[in-house]
């Protein structure tokens, strides 16, 4: 038959209170096997308490060629940051 198992992206929550983070990818025939393989490969040393897997083909990514129009407009908007505002030094709790 010769069919390659699909690729899955693996996300791990290292402990409750923290977000799931992307840790890598693996091949698996289905979602159950993907979770099992992720457990064996990415949590051998208690790295996690929760695993998400998603088939790689379902991820839509931004195109790095468009990084200019995507991300540069934020550059000249310093007023979105607290340090933009001039306030007296004696002002407390702000």
């Amino acid at each position, binding site marked *: 038959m010769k069919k390659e*198992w699909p690729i899955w992206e693996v996300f791990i929550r290292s402990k409750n209170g923290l977000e799931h983070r992307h840790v*890598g990818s693996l091949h698996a025939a289905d979602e159950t096997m993907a979770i099992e393989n992720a457990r064996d490969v990415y949590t051998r040393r208690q790295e996690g308490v929760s695993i998400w897997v998603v088939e790689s083909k379902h991820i839509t990514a931004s195109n*790095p060629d468009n990084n200019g129009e995507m991300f540069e407009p934020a550059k000249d908007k310093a007023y979105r940051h607290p340090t933009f505002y001039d306030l007296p030094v004696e002002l407390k709790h702000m």
Partner: protein
Amino acid sequence: MSLNIEQLEKEFQDKIDRGENIEPKDWMPEKYRKTHIRQISQHAHSEIIGMLPEGNWITRAPSLRRKVALLAKVQDEAGHGLYLYSAAETLGISRDELFDQLLTGKAKYSSIFNYPTLSWADIGAIGWLVDGAAIINQVMLTRTSYGPYARAMVRICKEESFHQRQGYEIMLTLSNGTEAQKQMAQDSLNRWWWPSLMMFGPPDEVSTHTEQSMKWKIKRKTNDELRQQFVDITVPQAEILGLTVPDPDLKWNEERAHYDFGEINWDEFWQVIKGYGPCNKERMTTRRKSWDEGEWVRDAAVAHAEKKAARRAELKKAV
């Protein structure tokens, strides 16, 4: 957006010179992509083939403590192979193609794994020397320019240090044991020392890939620099064991503040690379057998997944 190839290459080089990483979807020169596929897959194959010489001793480990450690180490190597295959796949080559390159002999793996593990002490020597040499190379690679490769290296380095410590502990126990045990450790060091030095690859003056690899920050130190670093670190470790490094020319050079060491037998290195090492045939035969005999399992898993998905779709329709 009509940048020509020279402009793209210049921007790419500037990005690397600024210390930025390259990520999978970024533009990269075709040669950068190809070099990475070659290097990362070679590294992945080494992890997978590297399981064989050590797996040889799992059933004969001298105690349960040694056995669980060795099992865990060999399992780690499988994981390391997987991290690396995944990194290579981000460059647009499939896992099956990568395996095919290994099994047809098109791709290489580290020549060290073509040496046999003749005694239990070899498991100690591999952990201490072979993993030690690998760590030096891999620590450098955590700062390599290609993001997925660098991240795989960080993960691997974290896990690798247990490998070396368990190896050294085996050597320490044997060195402090009976005369016969000490001899076994010495014999093992004698056999693994030179092949370990060869792991860093040919000398700089004949290494065909070094210059470009340094420019692209794929490598950050040359083969000879890494080899020297390994010798300097490892000789004092041999002294603690009370073992003798099998090199009559080995001696501390006060002026260079490095150890001088003897000539490496590069003929042997090239022979092993070309397929004439003691175990090349055996390693490849074992891998091919396991790949072929596993085919029905891989196919069955796909068939099962497809059947389940079809059944789920039918249920949905019925609702």
